[in-house]
């Protein structure tokens, strides 16, 4: 299996695309900033959200039972799945019992994490993703590359080609308006004909047993309200204590994600409609383990806004697929090693530790600190990558020793000026695909000596 650095190198072969990807995500990040700055008490809002989640995590077993009891009272069937396999099996059984062979699904990163689609397909059940971006990557037989913008790595011409091949439009169409309209017509037919719909869950409320699903497209609602069977899959960390706490999270979520003040639809599902079956699957899949790791449990506060990806200089220039896990970017790099430390040992190293993720996170997860801590755990457990490991150690050593730093700086300036090929040496993983800055004529050290 290729690691992050190798996959990032693949993504970087197409320089125009990388630049576009980088700039587009940065633009989304700027929209987030603008939206955040319009709220007077934004920082207090973040702090409050973080504290609500602290409370949730500290009392999770109670909240889960409270939620379950209330949901049952509301007429919802509640299932518990300790891992991905059990989740998938529960979905299959619900569908089998109802004799359903075709299901429509709205965005749910959890079902990506559980690899639900391939499992159902192996069992003779067709799944169609209804979020436009997810439908596009599904047609391309790829996983989403971003939790909020699933096909951000694709160009509109490629999407036109996919629609030409699969949805029968003329070749050569790349106008987003026409492509979206094509998908609207295609998916309407799906919504109307599918008897089962699976949705994700953004928030679940212990106090009332209801759950909230946020979309801009309206696809979760179209699927759920037209289907006889609605299945909602959620991680056990999605709870909030009371309905009023949603005010804090709904103010933060869309502003952090795309800079919108709120998503177009924030739908509160409390009871099935008459004649409908409604199921909730509460999934653990490693979350209770993460809860027991004091250094990493904060990652369970994540509300999946994607802001940490949009701002991450590594994500923007390496693409979501380079993380080879369902949830890419900084937060994915904390979540994945919890599930499999060996397979995802490379991910905590796919970061500059610049801390930008931590600064934008609406629930104040200490993302870059956790990445740093994972590195230590991974190296200690013997899963470290030696090449980068040694480079990092040398860097730490020179930075902590001013004399060496001075010498190394002088050497560095000379090397960049006279032997750029040496810096671009493929042995040096940090310089791949990076344009080296013009070397300053003087180092800060000698400038300070001359000018103080």
């Amino acid at each position, binding site marked *: 299996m290729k690691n992050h650095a190798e996959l990032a190198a693949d993504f970087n072969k197409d320089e125009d695309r990388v630049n576009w990807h980088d700039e587009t995500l940065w633009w989304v990040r700027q929209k987030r900033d603008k939206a955040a700055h319009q709220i007077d008490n934004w920082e207090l*809002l973040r702090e*409050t959200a973080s504290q609500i989640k602290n*409370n949730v*995590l*500290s*009392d*999770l*077993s109670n909240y*889960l039972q409270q939620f379950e009891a209330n949901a049952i009272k509301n007429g919802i069937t509640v299932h*518990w799945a*300790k891992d991905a396999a059990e989740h998938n099996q529960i979905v299959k059984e619900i569908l089998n019992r109802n004799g359903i062979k075709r299901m429509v699904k709205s965005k749910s990163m959890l079902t990506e994490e559980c690899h639900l689609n391939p499992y159902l397909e192996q069992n003779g059940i067709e799944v169609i993703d*209804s979020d436009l*971006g997810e439908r*596009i990557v599904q047609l391309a037989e790829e996983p989403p590359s971003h939790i909020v*913008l*699933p*096909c*951000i790595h694709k160009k*509109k011409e490629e*999407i036109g080609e996919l629609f030409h091949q699969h949805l029968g439009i003329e070749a050569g169409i790349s106008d987003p*308006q026409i*492509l*979206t309209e094509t998908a*609207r017509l295609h998916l*309407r037919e799906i*919504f*109307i004909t599918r008897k089962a719909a699976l949705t994700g869950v953004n928030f679940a409320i212990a106090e009332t047993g209801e759950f909230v699903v946020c979309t*801009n*497209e*309206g*696809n979760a*609602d179209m699927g759920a*309200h*037209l289907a006889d069977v609605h299945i909602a899959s959620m991680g*056990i960390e999605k709870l909030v204590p009371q*309905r*009023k706490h*949603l*005010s*804090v999270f*709904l*103010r933060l979520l869309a502003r952090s994600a795309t800079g*919108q*003040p*709120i998503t*177009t*639809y*924030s*739908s*509160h*599902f*409390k*009871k099935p*409609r008459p*004649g409908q079956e409604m199921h909730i699957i509460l999934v*653990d899949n490693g979350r*209770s*383990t993460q809860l*027991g790791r*004091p250094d990493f449990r904060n990652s369970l506060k994540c509300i999946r806004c994607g802001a940490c990806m949009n701002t991450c200089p590594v994500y923007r220039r390496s693409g979501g697929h380079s993380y080879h896990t369902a949830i890419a970017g900084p937060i994915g790099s904390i979540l994945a090693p919890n599930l499999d430390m060996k397979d995802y040992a490379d991910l905590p190293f796919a970061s500059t530790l610049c801390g930008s993720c931590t600064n934008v996170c609406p629930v104040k997860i200490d993302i870059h600190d956790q990445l740093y801590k994972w590195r230590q755990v991974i190296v200690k457990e013997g899963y470290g990558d030696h090449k980068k490991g040694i480079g990092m150690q040398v860097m730490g050593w020179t930075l902590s020793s001013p004399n060496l730093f001075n010498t190394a700086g002088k050497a560095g300036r000379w090397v960049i000026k006279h032997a750029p090929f040496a810096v671009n040496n493929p042995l040096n993983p940090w310089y791949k695909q990076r344009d080296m800055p013009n070397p300053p004529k003087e180092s800060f050290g000698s400038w300070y000596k001359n000018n103080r």
Partner: protein
Amino acid sequence: MSSRAEILALVDKNQPSHVDAPIIDMLATVNQSPEIILNTFCTSATNIGSQIIFIDSLDDIEGHVQQRIISPLRVVSPIPELKTFAEDSSVLNEANPHSLENVELAILKAEFGVAENGALWLTEQQMGNRVLPFITQHLALIVDATAIVADMHAAYKRTENADYGFATFISGPSKTADIEQSLVLGAHGSRSLIIFILKQV
């Protein structure tokens, strides 16, 4: 041991010691005049693609609809006052949402609006049928000018004791920017949203 018992036991064992939930009341916007709140609502709603029309009474709606919808396209509404020109959707069978597939315009009453984000809250009761606000090609929502709150904190204060089977905030027409981040209105839900603000008389 069942998965439920196993998960709860693990969570119980691994969760940190109890911390209280914070007080959130101080986050609410205070002391804004109704005029400012209404103005902010109009700005927020327009920014996200909603169209605002002020009306003096429900009778004004027919004229606005006739300018936009060419019969025989289907216009439905559960509001009794609109029966003169709209099909009464309250009689539509809840068990058969598919019968709404070809609705061109649905006109519904919203309980209240939220100034900070232009969203409108409606429950199943106002929808008649849960799928109606989503499946209709175009949506019009009516809200009283006096029923606009400043922010989401005030919004949830208002719904504190409400019971419903389904309810939603709707903010603008459905949209997507999944293709190269170009904004397109009319993803899977309504292609447009008109907000009729009923002025106080």
